[in-house]
């Protein structure tokens, strides 16, 4: 809680005896919140939403204290970021129409949620944004958010509980689109607004993701929406982020400007341009020429970027890759991969160490568990050692010395796929690579009719174990397992209210998947960013593969 590490705006806000003494009255509220939630956990190494509740003890006066003792920031200069996802980046200017991670940089720049996410130690943590404190009773059927009285939208109007209600209601309506829409429609009951600073969110069932996932529900201005309508607001959004929208073209770029005197954090830079250039060579050329300041890059270009004086910033293992064996799920009874020993052999025939070091240019780490290592409860299991002799022995013992299997991959085929296939061939497995265009690959995965296996890459922005339900629950869209025990454990994570217990259960889920060889974890990758010479300060958030927290960037 009193982490005094530099470079993190939120940790700097928490230091100081004056802060603690002045916050003692509000601290009683926070302490009551802690007691009500029933957890005093302050895990500084892994993220936990309750750490946010703990921090709430000092927060009510923190803003005022900070304002009194710190000179106001006057934004200056321009920052250009390239999110390189093409149309996926700026499909909508309404930050609440969030359907893919590529929209995150824009969303986080223009809109604040009630509880945000930021760098904390070597991982990520939660902080109060629009919500000064929140309280959650043990049954988890409601969450009371107490809003900051000084929070304002970019147009200067105050953020009130009516805006919270509008935001949370909006996600359930058509034609609104949101990545968690159907889930939210299931769990959300209503929001009550006893006063302008209090929003009581009522739920049909406990939904811990409301806190850990809260950054995916950025608050928008009801008044502005009512005035402009759905399409009008999408072309000219009003929200409470550190930047406000000026102009843009969907699918191409957005021009934003700093909100001076922002309730939470006035950006250091005045003008922010978000654009998308599909070709990496061009992006890096623009970093070198100074036309772009931050962009995505592949790890193979690390030396190039350093060579021209740029900097390479990375997240810490935000994406997990693992092998999915489809045959057991689809009921292909004659498939050798129904036998866990065969899956073990295939896993042990993969040279994770050399692949991550050489083919992935050191931008990945071998993994034994599926999942994002930054999230609470991650069970850091040892990856299978590379041993072709052992793998062959296991395969022979299982009675499947030689067989053929289809291997569906996203085109273009990555080099490591060919390496894996070659190693499998050495132990008698003939894997036929079937490249698919990404849309076709997605359809194949969701249809659950194709035999063989594929590699699943997921995790960036997966900050809570509950999100992995898609891959673990029997009825999850991407799940290829039918284990009742796992279902029970996963459901307890999804609807549990005890974060410590949820984290522990997630570790058990990972262990069971590992022991039963349901999936075979391969490695975790980090997202790499090329940072230009002009940028004096900016770092990505570990575990989150997106360019965010741009209000903290300096040029």
């Amino acid at each position, binding site marked *: 809680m009193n982490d005094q590490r530099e470079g993190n705006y939120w940790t700097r806000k928490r230091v100081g005896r004056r802060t603690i003494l002045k916050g003692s009255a509000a601290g009683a509220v926070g302490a009551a919140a802690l007691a009500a939630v029933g957890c005093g956990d302050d895990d500084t190494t892994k993220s936990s939403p309750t750490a946010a509740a703990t921090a709430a003890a000092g927060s009510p006066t923190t803003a005022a204290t900070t304002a009194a003792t710190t000179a106001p920031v006057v934004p200056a200069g321009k920052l250009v970021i390239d999110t390189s996802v093409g149309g996926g980046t700026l499909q909508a200017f309404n930050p609440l129409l969030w*359907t893919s991670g590529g929209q995150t940089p824009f969303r986080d720049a223009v809109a604040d949620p009630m509880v945000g996410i930021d760098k904390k130690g070597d991982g990520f943590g939660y902080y109060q944004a629009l919500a000064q404190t929140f309280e959650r009773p043990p049954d988890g059927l409601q969450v009371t958010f107490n809003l900051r009285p000084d929070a304002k939208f970019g147009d200067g109007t105050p953020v009130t509980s009516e805006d919270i209600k509008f935001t949370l209601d909006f996600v359930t309506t058509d034609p609104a689109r949101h990545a968690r*829409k159907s*889930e939210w429609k299931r769990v959300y009951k209503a929001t009550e607004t006893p006063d302008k600073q209090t929003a009581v969110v009522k739920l049909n069932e406990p939904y811990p993701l409301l806190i850990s996932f809260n950054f995916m529900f950025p608050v928008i201005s009801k008044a502005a929406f009512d005035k402009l309508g759905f399409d009008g607001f*999408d072309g000219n959004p009003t929200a409470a982020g550190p930047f406000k929208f000026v102009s843009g073209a969907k699918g*191409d770029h957005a021009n934003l400007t700093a909100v001076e005197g922002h309730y939470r954090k006035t950006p250091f830079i005045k003008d922010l341009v978000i654009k998308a*250039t599909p*070709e990496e060579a061009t992006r890096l050329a623009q970093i070198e020429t100074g036309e772009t300041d931050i962009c995505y890059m592949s790890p193979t270009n690390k030396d190039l970027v350093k060579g021209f004086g740029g900097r390479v910033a990375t997240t810490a293992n935000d994406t997990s890759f693992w092998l999915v064996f489809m045959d057991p799920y689809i009921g292909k009874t004659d498939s050798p991969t129904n036998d866990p020993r065969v899956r073990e052999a295939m896993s042990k025939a993969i040279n994770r160490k050399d692949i991550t070091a050489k083919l992935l240019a050191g931008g990945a780490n071998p993994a034994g568990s599926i999942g994002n290592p930054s999230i609470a409860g991650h069970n850091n299991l040892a990856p299978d050692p590379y041993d072709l002799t052992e793998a062959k022995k296991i395969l022979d013992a299982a009675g499947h010395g030689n067989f053929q299997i289809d291997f569906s991959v996203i085109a273009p085929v990555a080099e490591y796929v060919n390496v894996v296939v070659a190693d499998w061939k050495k132990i008698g497995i003939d894997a036929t690579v079937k490249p698919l265009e990404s849309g076709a690959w*997605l*359809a194949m995965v969701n249809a659950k009719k194709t035999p063989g296996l594929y590699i699943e890459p997921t995790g960036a922005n997966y900050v809570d174990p509950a999100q992995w339900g898609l891959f673990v629950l029997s009825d999850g869209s991407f799940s290829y397992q039918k284990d009742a025990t796992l279902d029970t454990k996963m459901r307890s994570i999804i609807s549990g209210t005890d974060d410590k217990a949820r984290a522990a259960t997630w570790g058990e889920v990972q262990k069971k998947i590992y022991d039963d060889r349901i999936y075979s974890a391969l490695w975790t990758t980090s997202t790499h960013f090329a940072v230009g010479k002009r940028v004096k300060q900016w770092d990505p958030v570990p575990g989150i593969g997106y360019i965010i927290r741009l209000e903290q960037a300096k040029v």
Partner: protein
Amino acid sequence: MARYVVSRVLQAIIVVWIVTTLVFVLVRLTPGDAAQVLAGPSAPQEEIDALRKELGLDQSLGSQYVDYMSRVVRGDFRDSLRFHESAMGLMLDRFPNTLKLAGIALVISVGLGGLIGVGSAIHPGGLVDRGGKFFAILGQSMPTFWIGLLGILIFAVKLGWLPAAGPGDWKHYILPSATLGWFSMAAMVRLTRSAMLDVLESDSVKFLRIKGLREREIIFKHALRNASIPILTLAGLQFVAFLSGSVIIETIFGWPGSGRLMVESVTARDYTVVQAGTFFISIVLVLVNLVIDLTYGFIDPRIRFG
């Protein structure tokens, strides 16, 4: 003449109808559907199904086609599935960017290529001929994406003379349009040279020389005009190719054009934009071809349209 124009317009309508129908069918035959891609990779099945219903994609192919064609005749291409904006509006917003690039590339291809071709024809085997041919063939031999990246490396990164990518002031147009135009220049050089050589050896040019006309007037006023029919045809084809095939250039240079929009829409299964874009491009191409055909009669009075 009027009969010719009417017949060409009717042909154009049929061509556009065939093209749009083909695109309608082909995008729907592609594996993966729009609802799934639009809902995002994390969306559960119920969300995808709801979106599919909202977009009308749960209807039969026939129903979707009838609905689509009835909208097309009214000029309604629906909204982009991704951007919630008029699909045709998006195309019309982006097309001028492509048009500008194509126009400048055409000037480079026809202007510079034509000039080199004329020079080559005047002095066959000379320095201009050999140098021009080499320059043009070089452009045709190298893939456009490679030329583009090389241009960025040399002129933007190393020399700092030009911006690397993206739209902006006049400097931003140089690299992408030069890359686009250089590739097509070789064909223009060779055709112009060949056409000019034919005309310069003709009896009519010999007669003009006997009459005592200045060589410059013979070449640029008489010979070039007679040689311009095939040059015009090629220019038209190249312009059409620039308009529809600028995808690589727009991708390399981050240019917000219609080519890039179309490719991204195909990947994202944004059917409405693909359909609107194809319809629009086919109309433009047919119109360009019609204008070129009509121009023949202006250039060569011997050509009449029955």
